[in-house]
């Protein structure tokens, strides 16, 4: 199975995550297009239906969905990158989000600058993520132990956060540039500038990731490692370093997400589990290992959640999972997922 995957890779290394953006290089193109079209059509119909019901508030809800999608993408892109490379379901991802946010909070209370604080949170989260990888690599190949370790790390991180910052929820102040709200056309409601900035941040991160993955040697190495780790290491590339870098990127993104989420939402006990669940849903719906899939799934989940909450709040959780079930029923490996190798 693995060999088959390899053979279908294009010679220029445009495999792996590339497939997300460029489905044309793969065999089941027609099916993929059909599914993508069906999902998109269903989403558009649902949103249109809800919009008619909500009326003038629909722009607001649309923006809400995109904001949530932005945060989900920041979380899920790193998660899926790590999974694609190392095949580890990092259950400590939510914990890294939370501790990154709290580090940013402390930094902001010291420096008062949001950007500096978010960077501090991201750097800390990246370092923590590398530390996790340093332990994980000793457990290589034993999926059960790897997952157990990340689960244990998640619990330790949550308790450390509780001990260090206490259980009282708190939040970061938005940077002065994005403080306050703007009026929405056609509605008496305002929209917080920072939420728009989160959408922008997610787009910038997404484009940067794409650029790194497709326009740099480092990205090529990562994509090659996703496809065939052994071959890459035979070529003389230190795969361990590539993996560590991927963990660092994932951790850094989670740290930035923590700072962003801690600003427009808040930081509190239990948030780690909530965002872990959200990113799991997004990653599974998008296809494990696919960054493009994570982006698409983040938008779908974010929009469905926002519109469902507006109209049937009690069913909103059900709607989110229902979307996941529907996607998996159509495409068992997620929107842009590939059949993963069952490694023994």
């Amino acid at each position, binding site marked *: 199975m693995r060999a088959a995957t390899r053979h279908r890779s294009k010679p220029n290394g445009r495999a792996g995550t590339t497939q997300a953006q460029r489905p044309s290089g793969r065999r089941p193109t027609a099916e993929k297009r059909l599914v993508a079209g069906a999902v998109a059509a269903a989403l558009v119909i649902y949103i249109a239906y809800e919009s008619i019901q909500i009326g003038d508030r629909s722009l607001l809800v649309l923006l*809400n969905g995109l904001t949530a999608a932005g945060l989900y993408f920041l979380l899920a892109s790193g998660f899926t990158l790590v999974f694609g490379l190392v095949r580890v379901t990092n259950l400590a991802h939510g914990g890294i989000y939370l501790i990154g946010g709290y580090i940013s909070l402390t930094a902001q209370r010291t420096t008062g600058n949001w950007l500096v604080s978010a960077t501090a949170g991201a750097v800390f989260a990246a370092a923590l993520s590398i530390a996790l990888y340093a332990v994980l690599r000793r457990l290589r190949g034993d999926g059960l132990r790897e997952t157990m370790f990340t689960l244990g790390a998640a619990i330790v991180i949550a308790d450390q956060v509780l001990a260090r910052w206490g259980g009282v929820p708190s939040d970061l102040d938005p940077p002065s540039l994005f403080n306050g709200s703007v009026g929405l056309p056609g509605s008496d409601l305002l929209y917080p500038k920072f939420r728009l900035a989160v959408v922008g941040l997610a787009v910038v991160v997404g484009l940067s990731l794409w650029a790194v993955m497709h326009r740099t040697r480092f990205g090529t190495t990562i994509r090659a490692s996703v496809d065939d780790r052994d071959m890459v290491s035979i070529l003389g590339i230190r795969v361990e370093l590539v993996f560590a870098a991927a963990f660092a990127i994932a951790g850094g993104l989670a740290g930035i997400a923590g700072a962003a989420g801690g600003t427009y*939402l808040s930081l*509190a006990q239990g948030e780690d589990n909530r965002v872990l669940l959200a990113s799991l849903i997004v990653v599974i719906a998008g296809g494990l290992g696919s960054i493009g899939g994570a982006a698409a799934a983040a938008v779908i989940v974010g929009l469905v959640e926002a519109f469902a909450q507006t109209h049937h709040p009690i069913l909103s959780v059900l709607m989110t999972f229902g979307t996941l079930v529907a996607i998996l029923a159509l495409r068992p490996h997620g929107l842009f997922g590939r059949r993963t190798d069952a490694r023994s």
Partner: protein
Amino acid sequence: MRTPKRRALGRLLAVLTAATLFAAGCGDNGDSADPAEEPAATAASQDAAETTEADEAPEPDSEPEPTETDAEGSGTDRIVIGAISTLDGPFAALGDFSMHGVKLALLEYGGTLEGTATRDGVTGASVAGVPIELVIEGSDATPDVAVEATRKMVEQDGANIIVGPLSGDEGLALKDYIRELPHVTLVNGTSASQDLTLRDPAANVFRFGGDGAMWTFGVGTYAYEELGHRRIATVAEDYSYPYDQVGAVLTEFCALGGSVAERIWVPLGTQDYSSFIAQIPSDVDAVFFAMGGTDAINFVKQYDEFTGQSIPLIAGPTAVDQSVLSELGSRAEGLISSGPVVDDAGLAEFDAFAEYLDSVFPGQTPNIFNVYYYVATKSALQALEEVGGDISDGSLAFQAALAQQSWVTPIGPVTLDDNRQAVVDMYLRRVESGAQRTIETLPKVNATLGFDRDEYVVQGSFSRENPSCG
């Protein structure tokens, strides 16, 4: 590829996983999180284990009262108080506050703090010569974890009195559990579901504070008569305690002729309220919101960002409790609410309590949680004192004495009604400079908010749709 050794390792891991999941499932109450369990608790559980062995009756239902086995002929040789609050999860901070209250009461009875951490117990307390032991357990605000933690305290630690729990649905679950154990007494902490005492009460469940409806007493009337609101919307968490708050506000508001445009129910623990805020009709006079802890902070912040508070907010009691006021900051200024604790009550008992709290736990100020857990624990200790620390009759005399408790707490006088539910003062209040200032004291609020008891009870429990309000 897999060697037998690795396979064995795999099997071992599978067993370990199962064990860990099991521990995570039933030990979420903190044993796992706290490797250095308090010596007091360990000692207590050993004692309890011996007792159980001797009796050979581990089932709680069939178990003869542990107090009887403890009582060697005359009286009781020790009394175990089990305190439960939310030490994990979204309400973890509130759990800390509650335990402060429990410990303060025990310190008044000769106890010494074992340490400053939440799970550090109190040793050396005694009532009428009978030593009091404190066992602390935590839940994560879910009813099943609360019941498991309480079951552990009763069955393994031999707890005679349970103080707690913190949240509404936990209380209802514990009532059903404790009802089957007549020798154990539940003195409620801050669980504020009406039906803990109002409907189908249990003989061994006591509440020395208000419920969600009582805490919201007077707000609906004030909004209609003083603020001139005629049409409101409500936003509240989707479980029993907020039902009671919304129900109480609407009962008063609608009886006067007001109407409700929209009742929006949000899942507990919602982070992003933007889509719910979008549903608030733009033509209402005010928005009543009933939430706790993190939810209140997120909601007020986002409501402020999305609307600039163009439609005024009216708050539920815990949404603007002193425990979250500092985090709400300037956004909470001017919010009207009703509730049991104000910062300017002018009661000598309140000032003394505030000073005492600050001296033992520096920097802490009175809030619903530390005050209520203090009042609950102290009421139990006072009743124990009256019966000479003797609960060897299956706690009957103790429970009778507890039902008769009548004293001036830090937040005003308390007495219990026939359902063992407190009749207490409430305060209509406004947030000014980060503190709760009294607008009006509402004396002796009872469980039926002054309405005729039979008529009130017959209306049924408050729910998403009840009261119908026109």
